């Protein structure tokens, strides 16, 4: 299975290597660098590269390439999924997954990688088990360790690996017992030039932060479970119960986890909460183009649209943009030609707009493509599909936990074609 792992930063340095079988020379990465050179964009490096003796499977996250070296047939998704799991674990441990964080914690990283794979086959990937084995570094713990000389490797042996509920630690204790659930929905949409919706769908997740003592058994039910078309669960959810009653019944892992991700059935019409009026034109013969953009709320059920961020990749011919935002700030990167406009909150009384001119390369002909506009936004306290949690109950423990549900709608891949 996975032979070795190389971490490569944006400038092409291998800054960490780990081998689970015989050592593979780092020169194998040369093939990767070749492919990287050929690809115009960082994300265009093919995830699977075949070399004479090995196969390289890589993922790109946080501007770090995680390159796994494979020697024989293995499902590529298996490796990709695992690499992402590694990144998630690093993020979980260090807060961020950057080159600096990894270098600072290189010993913990190594210990983690050692536990996660045995002979290239995943061993412990459940974060609860790993945290029992290797304590995540915190400033407090580092201080204590320095003074007392103790270590951040768990003294007691990880019993979680042996239990039937491998995702939960045993002997969890909290003084404040609380369980929070965030229902976050994302709208993926492509909007036509004329403003009509080409495709729109809603994907949602329920992220949970559960800090409960002992072995609680939770059930969560929805007012309108029929909305959910396609679901995928955390392994803790009892599938049969969902099949029969459409109730989520589970023993939660300790801490943060993703309980459920779902897709709202496409029969339901998707409400599009913002509209864009745009007028981006280039005139033949002149080295100027007009840029005119206005945003407005639509179908928001009275909630405010916040954290709006507009970005657009302008044609290569554009040299500079001279724009005037009615609110927020904009930046234009003349190298990447990326225009971003941080709008903030949309005020329905005074719609935000961005107007001005673009300067084109002198003598260049009019670009024949029109930029697409990507929009990000957030709407608090609303799930755009209308999904509502009915109730959350706890069994198996005596105490009364504090429960909270939060709803939020976000833009996913929300594009407006011009």
């Amino acid at each position, binding site marked *: 299975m996975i032979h070795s792992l190389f971490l490569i930063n944006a400038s092409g340095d291998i800054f960490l290597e780990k081998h689970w079988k015989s050592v593979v020379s780092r020169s194998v990465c040369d093939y990767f660098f070749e492919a990287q050179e050929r690809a115009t964009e960082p994300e265009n490096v*093919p995830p699977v590269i075949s070399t004479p003796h090995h*196969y390289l499977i890589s993922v790109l996250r946080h501007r770090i390439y995680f390159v796994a070296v494979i020697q024989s047939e293995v499902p590529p998704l298996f490796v990709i999924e695992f690499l992402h799991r590694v990144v998630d674990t690093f993020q979980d441990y260090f807060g961020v997954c950057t080159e600096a964080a990894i270098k600072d914690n290189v010993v913990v990283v190594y210990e983690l990688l050692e536990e996660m794979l045995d002979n290239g086959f995943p061993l412990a990937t459940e974060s609860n088990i790993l945290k029992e084995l290797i304590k995540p570094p915190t400033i407090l713990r580092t201080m204590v360790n320095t003074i007392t000389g103790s270590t951040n490797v768990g003294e007691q042996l990880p019993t979680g690996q042996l239990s039937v509920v491998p995702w939960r630690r045993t002997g969890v204790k909290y003084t404040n017992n609380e369980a929070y659930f965030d229902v976050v929905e994302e709208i993926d949409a492509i909007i036509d030039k004329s403003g009509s919706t080409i495709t729109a769908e809603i994907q949602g997740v329920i992220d949970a932060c559960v800090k409960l003592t002992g072995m609680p058994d939770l059930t969560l039910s929805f007012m309108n479970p029929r909305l959910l078309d396609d679901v995928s669960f955390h392994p803790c959810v009892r599938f049969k119960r969902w099949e029969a009653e459409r109730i989520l019944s589970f023993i939660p892992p300790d801490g943060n986890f993703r309980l459920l991700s779902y897709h709202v059935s496409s029969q339901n019409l998707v409400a599009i909460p913002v509209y864009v009026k745009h007028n981006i034109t280039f005139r033949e013969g002149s080295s100027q183009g007009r840029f005119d953009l206005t945003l407005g709320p639509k179908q928001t059920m009275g909630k405010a649209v916040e954290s709006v961020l507009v970005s657009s990749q302008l044609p290569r011919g554009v040299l500079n943009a001279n724009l005037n935002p009615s609110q927020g700030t904009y930046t234009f990167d003349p190298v990447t030609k990326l225009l971003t406009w941080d709008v903030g909150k949309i005020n329905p009384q005074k719609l935000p707009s961005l107007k001005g001119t673009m300067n084109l390369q002198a003598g260049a002909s009019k670009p024949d493509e029109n930029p697409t506009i990507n929009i990000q936004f957030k709407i608090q306290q609303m799930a755009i599909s209308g999904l509502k949690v009915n109730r959350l109950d706890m069994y198996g423990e005596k105490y009364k936990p504090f429960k909270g549900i939060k709803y939020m709608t976000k833009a996913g891949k929300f594009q407006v074609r011009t």
Partner: protein
Amino acid sequence: MSASSAFNDDKGGSSSVGEAEYAYDPVSGKIFSSDYNRHDDLKEMLDSNKDSLKLEAMKRIVAMIARGKNASDLFPAVVKNVACKNIEVKKLVYVYLVRYAEEQQDLALLSISTFQRGLKDPNQLIRASALRVLSSIRVTIIVPIMMLAIKEAASDMSPYVRKTAAHAIPKLYSLDPEQKDQLIEVIEKLLADKTTLVAGSVVMAFEEVCPERIDLIHKNYRKLCNLLIDVEEWGQVVIINMLTRYARTQFLNPNINESLLEEGSGGDKTFYGSDEDEDEDDDEKEKEKKAEAAAMAKRKPYVMDPDHRLLLRNTKPLLQSRNAAVVMAVAQLYFHLAPKAEVGVIAKALVRLLRSHSEVQFVVLQNVATMTIKRRGMFEPYLKSFYIRSTDPTQIKVLKLEVLTNLANETNISTILREFQTYIKSMDKDFVAATIQAIGRCATNIGEVRDTCLNGLVQLLSNRDELVVAESVVVIKKLLQMQPEKHSDIIKHMAKLTDNIQVPMARASILWLIGEYCEHVPKIAPDVLRKMAKSFTNEEDIVKLQIINLAAKLYLTNSKQTKLLTQYVLNLAKYDQNYDIRDRARFIRQLIVPTEKSGALSKYAKKLFLALKPAPVLESPFKDRDHFQLGSLSHLLNAKAGGYQELPDWPEAAPDPSVRNVEVPEWTKCSSREKRKEKKVEKPFYSDSEGESGPTESADSESDSATASDSRSGSEESGSGSESESEEDSESEEEEEEKKSKKKELKKPVQESESEQSSEEEDRKPEKKSKQQKSDSESESDEDEESESESSPSESEDSESEAEVKKKKKVAESKPPSKPVKKEKKEMSLLDLDDFEPAPSPQVTPVNTLLSNSLVTDLEGLSLSDSVLSPATIAPSSALKNYELLHRITGEGLTVEYCFSRQPFSPDANMVAVQLQFTNNSSSDTKSLHMEDVKLQSGMRVKEFPEIELLPAGETASAVMGIDFCDSTQAANFQLCTHTKKFFVSIQPPVGELMRTVFLTENEFKKEQGQLMGMNEITEKLTLDARCRNEHAIVQRVTAAANLSRVPCGSDKECRFAGRTVTSSSLVLVTVATREEGAAQLTVNCEKMVIGTMLVKDILLALTQ
């Protein structure tokens, strides 16, 4: 960075890894000596007795390893700390050891004993981690130790240790592929394991070591299917992939009756798939019925094997997994195995994966592209999910385009084309080119839109971007070939383009078009050739070839206008740098220009050049990729990757389904599938939720216990043969039972319940009863008590925490607490019967059993032959093998042979007696024969033979020397001197000669054997040579191979032998248990593992040849 350095300083030691990293980096680059010094101070730190310093040093070393710096020179200093108390130091040492052991094999051996100790630790996690590290050290010398450790761990009571054993199997296999047969045995054993923890890992080992041994799966197939949902996600992937292959060999093609014409009906079938969220179960049943009904309607009804159905049903819930690899694995399973009507369910899950990371998208889209060619209808409802966003990476865009093209049909082509139009305006030119190709493919596939597409593409010819134009030309060329006569104006338009377009491929395409259809554009064609002739020298090679081609075609159709031009072009080509072009020119000149010499071919030149060419077929690059298993690396690369297992074709006739029957009535008889499924699915959740009350729970444990008790009764039956042997000593008896029970994995249900709550205990009482009933009914005799007593060691053994509960339970069952005593009695009485009823073999003489230990040793000292005492032990003296020490020729007439006389060497009991026989074949006398210059391995000693003063010609003399080989098979080298010559000779003992016989009674034997379990026990299966299937022959061969004495034994199925090594007096116990048909099992117990291993080999050789 400087800030962080300051920070590190503040924090002091523990996090100074980062500091060390760049504080030293520049230094090491500049001054070599400082690099050396650095390692010195690390060594110092490692040698100190402060854990914190050691830890610090190890952290810095690990940081070095992580950066790929060589730290191998620290090996001796690091490896010393392998037994360090501090857990983190220990772990880091392991990391280091596994990394460098391969390079420093000898030093790595120093650490082995630590792990061997760890293997016997009472804590299962320590055992597991010891095995893990031990098996990760890639040192070939320890292969036998690893093998032993794996075998041992494979029958460990902890499933976690067994899992680790399964992990270790591929490691050992990659280290030494010759161990394959033994490893397969271990795999076979572990495949029978019933815990979810082990299942994934052992299937992984199976796939790496012996994927061709599909027969090992039969018995475990249903169990694997049922366990699947509870296995950890990575194991699921491996198991599903393996089961896909398995099912392809064992079941019939479910689509066997569907004709190819039905392809189109995929559309409405997926309708069921997408609709099923309402009530999946009903839906599924309905679907099943429908599928069945459809099959029934056919002439030859197809009935799905229930095991096939079981697999499909049990994998389906996994489509909901959060792990993309699992979803993909299930999807490919359905694609390859499910009836067409059911494949649709996977579409939704795959579309869901498109929301994931771009790498996941990449792989999923590749597979979707392959699927859409075969089953277009499946993904049609999700057409819009494949629409392309400007932010997608190019490789994703191209794949989505591929899928969209595959999905295009008459009804949706207009929307797809409208999408394509927006794509053409994209800034990403590679993507635009791919879009144009896609339009071309849509146009060829769907006749109605061909003209529309062609017009669209022609418009693109006026695009400013040259790449776009070039790509369009290429595509148009292909399209025009289909109906050229209609489109002469397009050809004219393209002819004009030759002035502007510079992309070689496009120019070549245009020239080809004009040449091919020059009759449609008779005026323009010669003009184009004229222009081209002008620029010929500056063109690319492919363009030049097409110019020659065009010239030839025009010459044939319109020679009046173009004769000179053609000559000119051919002349230019004649002196071209490229030999292809020169060849082509020569060839064409011969063919078209008639000369007196030109052959018969020139008559046919016109036919050759202007033959009607079939229109090209624009095909998806994903066509026919589905012969690779979807989701595999090979499929992705469209090339066979190393270790790829072909997906076999469906068999013509189904192989015998009964091979999967396990001797467990519950599984096969259970008629209600739904119920079974429910049970399985819910099991993991309910088994740990105390709040839930228990109908399901008890049902569960019942089924478990039923299977367990069943295998238990089975084991009793099979074990009865050996049980009937004499067993006087209850202690060894118990051990043996323990071993047996371990082997049969009886303790498994107990193990599982270890973590279960006490409420569960209630359920186990009836369970227990049922066990008894089972064994009652199945074993003929009244073994009530026995079965009980048998189960008790296995239970008490592994449940420390449960011991108390169990005791209570036993009280409840009104059993006297003084159970062991009772048991002993029972066994005594049993023995009385068993031991003496079958006539004892003649070797068991009363003398033997009565001999006290001391007497035996007394007698041993005498040089009386053993034969008097025990006839069984004699190795007929003729069996003493003579070895040659000195050949007549090299010895210049002196021949020396030696044999191991197997007599005690009287001057020193720790020496092996070697009898030398000197023969003087020469014509002269040999004088003063003696030995000199003895070269020995440390520890070895030699007692020289007394000098032979004179050996007359033709005479023979013999002498005895003693060698203490220190229980090793190292050779003793010395010089044999005569009065004139010196000969270098060496004596190397076979391992069998390194021991002396001892007398043991059967009880003693068993007792000793009980103490030499585990690592000290080596077991081999063998098939006896045809000539040595009787007891006598076995005894003879074993005693010939090794100096052992027979231990009397009541059974004629088992021969036991005992001996002690000469130097260290370690016991060597050998058991040969024969079965029917010459099968036999050889067990050697010896404290010295090396001796044991070698002895096994020797005896094996003796018995099989």
